């Protein structure tokens, strides 16, 4: 049922008229959520995503996609993180101050992967947002009607409608 619900939400996101900006921001922020391995940072990002009216389905879809991609990107993230933490000497005082600041060290920002993923995620906010918005607009203009005619989509709609009615009767 959970899988069906998620699928339905994804289909609704694509097929409905939800603001492309909300979906784009959701996707961009979700990408960071997926990339960062640290739980504390994930929690903070989750609160941020929840705080702003961005599309949650897009955010969690992006988080899932980027979490899978992140494993493959580990060497790259390590290099970015090392560069930011160790090679950028002008930032060292900032990192030292943060390192001595309460709570902040719990984010493990001094780990190369955490820092690398955070930096990459922030860098990718705008490209991710623009890309997501453009793709959605293109989809809705050119593909939405065709997709809605697909048998699989119709079946899914029927199944979800039936289960919704059944659960309401119960």
């Amino acid at each position, binding site marked *: 049922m959970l899988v069906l619900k998620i699928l339905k939400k994804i289909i609704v996101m694509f097929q409905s008229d939800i603001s492309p900006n909300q979906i784009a921001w959701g996707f961009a922020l979700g990408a960071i959520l997926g990339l960062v391995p640290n739980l504390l940072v994930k929690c903070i990002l989750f609160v941020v995503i929840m*705080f702003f*009216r961005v599309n949650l389905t897009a955010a969690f879809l992006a988080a899932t996609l980027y979490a899978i991609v992140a494993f493959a990107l580990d060497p790259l993230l390590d290099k970015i993180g090392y560069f930011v933490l160790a090679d950028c000497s002008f930032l060292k005082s900032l990192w*030292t101050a943060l390192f001595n600041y309460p709570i902040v060290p719990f984010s*493990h920002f001094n780990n*190369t*992967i955490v820092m690398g993923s955070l930096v990459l995620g922030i860098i990718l906010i705008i490209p991710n947002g623009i890309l997501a918005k453009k793709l959605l607009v293109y989809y809705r203009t050119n593909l939405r009607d065709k997709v809605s005619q697909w048998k699989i989509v119709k079946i899914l709609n029927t199944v979800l409608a039936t289960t919704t009615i059944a659960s309401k009767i119960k």
Partner: protein
Amino acid sequence: MKFIRWSFVIPTVIIIAAIIIFNIMFFDVILKKAFISTGEMIFGAKVEISSLKTSFSKMSIAINGLKCANRNDYFKNLIDIDYIKFDVRFSPLLRKKFIIDEMTVSGLKWQTERKTSGQLPPKKEKKFEKKKKDGMFSKMFAAAKAKTVSEFNQLPSVTAYKEIEDLINNFDVNKLIDKAQLQSVKEIEQKTKELQTKYETYQKKIESYDVNKKAEEIKAQIDEISKTKVSGLADVAKAAKNVEKLKESKKEIETIINDLNSIKKDVSENINFVKEAKNSINKDIENISAKLSIPSLNLKNISRILFGNQWVNRVETVMYYMELIKQYMPEKKEEVQEKQRARGRDILFKLKQYPTLLISLINVSGSTNDNLDFAGVIKNICSSPSMISNPLTVELKGDNKIQSVSVSGLFDHRTDNSKDTLAVQVSGLSAKMLNVPQNEYLPLVDTGKMKVNADFSLLNNSFDCNANINLTDIQKKNLNDIDGNLKYLAEITNSITNFSVTATAKYQSDENMDFNITSDIDTKISNAISKMFSSKVTAAKEKISKELNKIVSEQTKNIQDEINKQKEGLLGQITSQTNVLNNIEKSINEAISKSTKKSLF
């Protein structure tokens, strides 16, 4: 504000606000419980806090009425503090580090009375015991204590005092006189017999001289000489023969006179019966006195018996707290290298390290049970001593000219070789603090004043401590309140108004704990017993003399009277006979003289 998801923000804010309000309202209660629980696990007895107030704006905690029960005496508080206040640094607190720059502790007292027992509930007690047993010193001390206590209990304390009691109880002059089988009476009887025999012999001897007969015979001889007329040589020869005969009689008379004189001398000089009887009585007194000799008692262990367990308990307390300090202020250990993380690398920046707990300065003020005010500082209480430059120090002092107290301690755990020392000097305070149990064998120690010099040191695993305790001004027991035999013990203990005790305890690695206690109370009790017995012996001697004189005086008087009568009679006889003999001798001399003249003419 279209871009904000109010449906998430509003409930979140409400929940956070509720948590904050809950904390503000109930945080003090929760923290108080946490303090009590931690304290109980540290001290192994009930901990009570009257009130606890926190201030988030000042990050301060104020505790009123902290009472921590004594594990060794549940109806007393180990410490009783009126007020504690300290500020906690905020940023280290977020890293679970308690950094306190200055703490105020006022109204510190100890050994205050409790109305309720300070014993922990069985569940907590078990938990504490389990925790306590894990300590190295606890294990070592438990074994040493068991051995020492059993050793102290085996000392012949009861025997020694039993001996004293028996001697005191059985001290009965009449019994001693009975047991002594008096010789004086027998000797007097013997002397009487001897004297009577002697007198009879003298009497017989005097009678045997038959002086009157001898006088008549000599008179006859003298008459014969005086009647003799010298007219020729034949008469001269006859007269000379009579004179010779008279001279022989004279010699005989002289011998008798000499004998009588010697008897007279013997009777008048030697026979002093009272003197003889006195000598016999004195012999008896000496004989009984020998049985009243002062007992030799094994008293050298009395101090160990009296103070042994106290000393063991005190050492145990000090060691327990020293171990506690070690536990919460561990020595420096080799740093463990952190493992490489599974993903990525940790870049380490210079981090300002904080120990889990650091109290830089505690201003302490309080009063002893004798109301002696003291004040001082405790510096550098730290959970990781190697992280700070100075060791933990304690300096407490109080002096009101009559009483003084000084405590100085150094607990250095900054390196592998830890060094803990504690010196306590107390003078003029009530000896009640010693908690010496009162009994009939001891002076009223509680009423005395004490002067204590004690040093405790723990260098690595070598424990060494010694204490010199001088007790003075010990008050005397009121003998009127004491009945029976205990009065004698009270007399002994009352003679002791001061004494000193020296106690030591040593422990080296792989050796048994060695406890030693010496005190001059052993000698003092011994001397007191001797003194008491000496006075009793003197009194007994007088009593024995009186008793003996009473027994034999009448008999002696009668005998003496009889002897005197006999003596007088004998002497009278001797005198009259001597007079007679002297007269005869005179007559003989005259007769011889006349006869000689006659012969010449």
